[in-house]
């Protein structure tokens, strides 16, 4: 039987993010929360293999209690079990503290019900760090492949997985022993439209809540703010660069505007270098 674990995070839909013009703060109100898209695709792949091989999918998330929405969404997509690790003391975690809590949790689940593949998203779209997946792999001592676009082979008997990972240069085909950890690109699988009975089951599903008081014992010094070596020193809006000159082609005519532009580029020594290169 196949057992996949998927780490899912709830994120604000950053395509909708706004900054309050007065306070410079992030406006969270009305910004829809979604399952991190990369995680959703990773989950879709885990479920695809579960359907093919038989077995189950467990999802884990660390975050505030309202993350149950995202766990329910995972159940809707076909996950069987959801664990939400949630405690006030976890707040303010950076990627190091997050990877600690996730690794401990996944390890505990693994000991009770051995996991074959741990899936992560390539990165979370709110922080864009791509650090948590590798961090958990290091802490658990698992082999890792990042930026996976395809699982070619998943052989539970020979305990191996063959994955394709895309880099700037090429696609690497990598073989790893199981259990292994993958961080996934969106290409890995399409998100299916869940059947109605799955949706209804998910709406009634209450995930397990793990906190500082149990069932696991977390080290206070390694969670939340205390476990985070980095702190935000200050926040600001990006500085405005100095604007250059504007030429209105509707006033001076297109040919003249271009002529003046090229003259400026010449003066800056740009066009000659460039044209030199083009010859």
């Amino acid at each position, binding site marked *: 039987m196949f057992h996949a674990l998927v780490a899912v995070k709830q994120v604000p839909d950053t395509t909708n993010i706004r900054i309050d013009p007065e306070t410079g703060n992030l406006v969270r109100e009305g910004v829809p929360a979604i399952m991190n898209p990369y995680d959703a695709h990773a989950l879709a792949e885990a479920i695809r293999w579960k359907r093919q091989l038989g077995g189950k999918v467990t999802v884990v998330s660390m975050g505030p209690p309202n993350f149950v929405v995202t766990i329910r969404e995972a159940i809707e997509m076909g996950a069987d079990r959801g664990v939400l690790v949630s405690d006030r003391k976890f707040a303010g975690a950076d990627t190091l503290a997050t990877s600690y809590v996730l690794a401990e949790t996944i390890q505990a689940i693994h000991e009770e019900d051995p996991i074959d593949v741990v899936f992560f998203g390539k990165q979370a779209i709110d922080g864009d760090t791509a650090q948590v997946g590798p961090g958990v792999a290091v802490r658990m001592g698992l082999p*890792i492949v990042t930026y996976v676009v395809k699982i070619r082979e998943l052989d539970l008997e020979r305990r191996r997985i063959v994955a*394709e990972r895309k880099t700037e240069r090429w696609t690497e085909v*990598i073989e790893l022993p199981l259990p292994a950890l993958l961080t996934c690109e969106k290409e890995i699988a399409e998100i299916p439209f869940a059947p109605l009975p799955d949706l209804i089951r998910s709406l009634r599903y209450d995930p397990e809540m793990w906190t500082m008081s149990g069932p696991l014992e977390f080290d206070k010094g390694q969670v939340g703010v205390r476990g*985070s070596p980095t702190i935000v020193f200050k*926040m600001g809006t990006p500085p405005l660069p100095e604007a250059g000159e504007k030429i209105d082609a509707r006033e001076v005519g297109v040919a003249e505007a271009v002529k003046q532009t090229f003259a400026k580029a010449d003066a800056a020594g740009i066009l000659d270098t460039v044209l030199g290169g083009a010859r």
Partner: protein
Amino acid sequence: MTTRRFWAFIEQEEGHAHPVSWELLGVIRRLASQVREEAEAAGDEVVVEGVLLGHNVGHIAQEALCYGADRVYLLDDPVFTHYRNRPYYKTLEEVAQKHEPEVFLIGATTLGRDLAGAVATALRTGLTADCTQLEMGEVKGSPQKLLLATRPAFGGNIMATILCRQNRPQMSSVRPRVFPMPERNPHPQGEIVREAVSVTEEDALSRILEFVRPEGESVNIEYADVIVAGGRGLGTAEGFGLLQQLADALGGVVGASRPCIDAGWIGNAHQVGQSGQTVRPKLYIVAGVSGALQHKVGMQNSDFIVAINTDPDAPIFDVADVGIVGDLYEVIPAMLEQLAARRKARGSGGGHQEVSA
């Protein structure tokens, strides 16, 4: 006396250094210079060092000296023939524990991002991703200057400055092209130190079976000298044909804003911006792009920016060296025409012009 070590990871594949490595050496040298005074007062020494892993890559270590390293730690072994996460991170963990760098920068490439998170976790230290600004600055309560790492957050709408107070090294990943390429010194002074390699093939736990190289068109806009970029203002996918003509005339490549990629007008390798590539060409011509923050962060460091937009208030003009208020479908053909005229002038009586240039 202690030695304060400023490290850059020298990234290479198949014996070719990634240029971001040199950009990192440039930054790290600047950071080192920012603590020099403080170090001298305390009787400390400051050094700029590179760490290089690979197989038969001595020539790259030499190059690293040319780009400003005082010392390069070279870990040369067949186990590093191709990049793999475990042998790399375990080795870096080991050398970092041995030499205790104060600051450690890694390029935010696919390879670098895969590696940085693992190394930072192994060293139980802080790592700030995708920094766009780095300074050594004074922070209340800290006897020494700390690395102030600034990065875009929340879709680029906010810049957050992050620091790592206690744990060492202070790590950051840096995207290619965010910082300038330093001058190359053909006669460097520094030294190459070969370090013993302890990881073995068995430790790797992974095997690369195959490399599939992309066929056909592959663009590399990241290191292009000239980029002609277009946005939703093109109106249609065909508009990129016109941009390509201009790019060809200038020996450049075509870039695009995200909506064009989303609309399927052009492949995502062409995307410039926060969720695409950061570029730093000599010349960036941008037409029909409004200039959203997420686009600007990807291109505002270009040497010379020409923006074309029908809307005189488009924010793209804020970063342009020259802005043309006009219709790109009139302006670009005029550019092509005038470039052709120049070329002709060069081709025939061009000798005269070149002498005077």
